[in-house]
């Protein structure tokens, strides 16, 4: 599937500002982004539910959507698992699943064979004669996936399919789904706002923000090298301190991707993804779990004072404050007293520097 400069407006508001993307056959793509970033709009455009204002969508080289042409939903050879599953309440699970086969006038023997396949694959034994209202959330979701899989579509679209499930079931189902789609080598386009869901399922993650793609990369690459401040924040690097670029080479192994930032007259080596100039103000982002509290001064560390410690079960979340007034959190195995002083050390590979934009 290929998207070329896809744009979408609602009135004067630009929702998608020119999306370019290629998805390979058998690839699982997760689109991640905050609410209102345009990810659901993108999914609906691919599905043919929404028209686009500019650009084109191709599937296997065939144009599916453009401002002048929209191939009807039913002729796109795609299928979708909806956020609310959209199971037809007046049909039993069996009828929900085989509906697409009936539409295609599949002969009965083949229909039974395919039904049996998905029944086994998705552990639906004993559930086929029940109505959706009689099924649990997880069972409903499996029926919805079975319905999407049985027609063997070229692409499966997943619209936040786990968000209506409880936490425990969500964790179970995301692993199951990832395993299933990999096993079937299905092309999947998955929209979510939950990073852990995207990490668990995707071959590549697309991080969207305000109608543009901030980063497309493997889950590990996105996690280790978040290209923008939004990606960093979305993938857990919520801590933020201020610094400025220093002159001189980085004291890290990878000098071309790292930069040295001064903070309270200390040198901090960080990863940087932009060309920076001496004296430029920077925001340094990092994850609480990748920051260590030490009592003695060491490399790549910021002097801090403990503000408070709160027990999180197995560890403490400690809020600390720098001399410059920045506050952030770190995790520590033991309780730290208020006003206790020490150093917060972050490895250069886990400290991300972004240009600070005034205003």
């Amino acid at each position: 599937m290929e998207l070329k400069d896809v744009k979408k407006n609602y009135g004067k508001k630009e929702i998608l500002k020119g999306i370019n993307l290629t998805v390979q056959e058998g690839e699982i793509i997760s689109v991640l982004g905050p609410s209102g970033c345009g990810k659901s709009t993108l999914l609906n455009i691919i599905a043919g539910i929404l028209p686009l204002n500019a650009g084109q969508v191709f599937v296997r080289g065939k144009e599916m959507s453009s401002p002048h042409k929209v191939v009807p939903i039913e002729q796109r050879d795609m299928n979708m698992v909806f956020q609310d599953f959209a199971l037809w309440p007046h049909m039993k699970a069996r009828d929900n699943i085989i509906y697409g086969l009936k539409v295609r006038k599949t002969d009965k023997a083949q229909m039974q064979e395919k039904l049996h396949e998905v029944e086994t694959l998705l552990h639906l034994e004993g559930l086929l004669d029940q109505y959706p209202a009689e099924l649990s959330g997880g069972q409903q979701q499996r029926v919805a996936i079975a319905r999407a899989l049985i027609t063997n579509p070229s692409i499966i679209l997943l619209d936040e399919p786990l968000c209506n499930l409880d936490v425990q079931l969500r964790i179970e189902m995301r692993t199951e789904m990832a395993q299933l789609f990999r096993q079937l080598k299905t092309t999947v386009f998955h929209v979510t706002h939950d990073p852990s869901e995207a990490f668990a399922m995707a071959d590549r993650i697309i991080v969207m923000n305000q109608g543009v793609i901030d980063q497309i990369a493997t889950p590990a690459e996105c996690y280790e090298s978040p290209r923008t401040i939004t990606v960093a924040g979305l993938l857990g690097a919520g801590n933020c301190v201020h610094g400025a670029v220093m002159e001189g080479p980085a004291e890290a192994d990878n000098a071309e991707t790292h930069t040295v930032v001064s903070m309270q007259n200390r040198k901090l080596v960080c990863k940087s993804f932009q060309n920076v100039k001496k004296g430029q103000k920077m925001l340094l982002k990092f994850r609480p779990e990748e920051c260590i509290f030490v009592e003695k001064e060491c490399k790549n560390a910021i002097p801090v004072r403990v503000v408070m410690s709160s027990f999180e079960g197995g560890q403490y979340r400690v809020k600390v404050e720098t001399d410059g007034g920045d506050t952030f959190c770190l995790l520590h195995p033991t309780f730290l007293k208020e006003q206790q002083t020490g150093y917060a050390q972050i490895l250069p590979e886990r400290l991300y520097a972004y240009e600070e934009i005034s205003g």
Partner: protein
Amino acid sequence: MKSKDNAAGIGILGLLILLVLLPLVTVLFQVICPGLSLDKFNVSNLALVLDVFKRPLWKKAFLNSFFLSCGTTVLGLILAAILAHIRVNYKFVGAKLLDFTAWVLMIIPSFILAQGWVYFSSGNGIASAWLGIKGVGSFVFSYWGLVCVMVLCKFPLAYVTIKTSMEWYPSRLMHAARMNGASAFRAWKNVQLPLCIPAYCSAAMLIFMDTVGDYGMSSTITAVYSFPTLPYTIYSAICSSPVRFDMAGVLSLYLMVMIVIAMAVQYGAMGKKKFDFLDNGTERVMAVSPKKPVQVLLTTGTVLFCLIALGIPVGSELIMSFSGSVSVQKFTFTLDNYKEVLSSAGSMVSGIKHSLGLAGISAVFGILIGFCVAYVLTYSRFKLKKLIDMLTLVAMAVPGVVLGIGYIFVWNQKWLTKVGLHLYGTPSILVLASVAAAIPMINRVLVGGMAKIPGSLLTAAQMQGAGFFRKIRTILLPLLHNSSVSAVLAAFGGSVFNLAITTILYPPNYSTLPVYISDSYNDLKFGYAAAATMVGGAFIVGIMMLLEVVLNAGYRKKQGH
């Protein structure tokens, strides 16, 4: 997809313009172009609009309609709110009788209720002749008496609306207010009451619109008490000699203006606020059992009230149907009225036949058009959806009299004869008008049903490869079954007893059931009219019950239940 939406939307819009807007505009156009005759076109005729405050009959009709509707709205709203409050919050014997009474009163056409009240209250009616209560006639046939009768007939419209809103208690929102320090009263005043305001506004508008445009009640009461209202005066302007097109136009204009103002007041009161509070934080109100004396009081009050509101008109009809005399004072028990009704096979049976045929066709065409309208309004992205919605509202608001007269103007033009569409004087015009009158109700019921069916269910079917008609047939229609049956029955029942439209448009030798009953009543054949009402009503109700059973049985069979 978008072009399909547009094509469907434009088609629906065109149909609504033809069925609703065009007749309405032609009526209003009469002011400057009486009889739609271009040689009589005169803009200065607009000055006639002000004549409503000079000409005694016009002025009286306008003021009577206005004050009757205002009085009925205020008192009806108060009564409905009190009854709904009692019904929702207290458990007592007879509580369900209140609901039953409300629903029956909503179903019975106003002219039949009015006839019942006339039989009860007239000088030698049941009240004075049998019960010995003097002064009932002089009270009922006065402004306040008519307001009271109207309140008893129209309060169910508000009762059902308010009761539905009272059944839910926004507990989380109320708790939030209390957490912020509000007293119970303040929380009610600032949170619960504003949330219910839309229901009260809708209820008030329904009563006002139904009263101001009610032709059946005013035409029936007029036989014994001169109280000209706009609908009846408009009817007289067109249906008596000399025909006064300009008068019909001016009075229709005022009738519509009053309805539009009522709608505007409602929208103004609601603003752009959307009060969707039916979520997980909302609890269904649990009725409590009050102390024994209070329970007895509530039960007695309810039974008495139901006896007055429903028992008097229906009971009076029943008594009169067995009366051998026009006056109850000289009542002799007889079955002759029924014998005559059933034996006069010619007129009565053909009246029922015509009404059934009309109602059947209206229900079928109405459901087809209403379904398309509701589909476009609910699921399409047609840009002029709001205009379609507004037209359906207008269709609901236009009184039958105005619609009927509009149909005469539209379909009685000479040039239509050349193209074979001169429908005035043929049953086709009745069909068209009945369909137009049925569409708003069908549309409201179906839009309500479709609102509960998320668009994703239809998209899911398309994702499986289902085309438009398959999607409708296999997903939407089965899920919409109950709403569709309700809509068909409501349209059928409404059309059978639509007095205003059939009185104005029925072709020669094509009498309908309501016209037949009304004519008998106007000829002072009270016993006969009452018996015809009973027989016709029972027959129609029987058919509707059968229809419901058949429609639901077919569905159950299909579903394999």
